[in-house]
């Protein structure tokens, strides 16, 4: 039973355009959400996070939107750059987060020149 779902295994976007990656969750106890970026043969790198008390968080080209009523979050990357090509993982945490993160399966973003 997947508590965090990323339904698009891959996404292809033209360089300079907006990339939108989606994530759905089922556990109402999740109150903190993160996006990680992963290149092959490397560990996940933290990108951006959002607390459930907010509906938007922005950091440079990256913006995360949270819709609690729909249990849905999205990551917007604008403008998309070739270096953004990677696998993006959505992750969620409940309460203090001491018991780890729950990850989606990831979306492979490919930026086309």
């Amino acid at each position, binding site marked *: 039973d997947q508590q965090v779902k990323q339904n698009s295994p891959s996404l292809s976007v033209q360089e300079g355009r907006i990339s939108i990656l989606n994530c759905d969750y089922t556990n109402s106890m999740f109150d903190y959400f993160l996006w990680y970026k992963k290149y092959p043969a490397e560990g996940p790198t933290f990108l951006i996070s959002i607390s459930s008390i907010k509906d938007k968080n922005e950091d440079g080209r990256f913006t995360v939107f949270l819709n609690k009523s729909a249990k849905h979050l999205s990551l917007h990357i604008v403008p998309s750059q070739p270096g953004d090509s990677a696998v993006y993982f959505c992750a969620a945490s409940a309460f203090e987060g001491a*018991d780890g*993160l729950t990850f989606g399966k990831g979306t492979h973003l490919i930026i086309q020149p």
Partner: protein
Amino acid sequence: NAGVTQTPKFRILKIGQSMTLQCAQDMNHNYMYWYRQDPGMGLKLIYYSVGAGITDKGEVPNGYNVSRSTTEDFPLRLELAAPSQTSVYFCASSNGLARTQYFGPGTRLTVT
């Protein structure tokens, strides 16, 4: 400041062998975690620790053991390796309050 380091990077084990995956962090984080990632899947939590001397099971602990004798180190022990333990293993740490976890580069383990 190296962050989270893991050794070895790669390892091939025969069925029934044992090994320890090493993880160290130099950020003075109290919380440390072990995850595994199978092909096409997200990361799954194996064990975690909220401080020296304190460990607890995650979602997939069977076949593994951990110990935490210092703040810096969190080794993962595989006893009697099985093909189902073929995976990439990631160690992570956080200071708890901030809730963001920082990951090491991973260890790719193959059991044949």
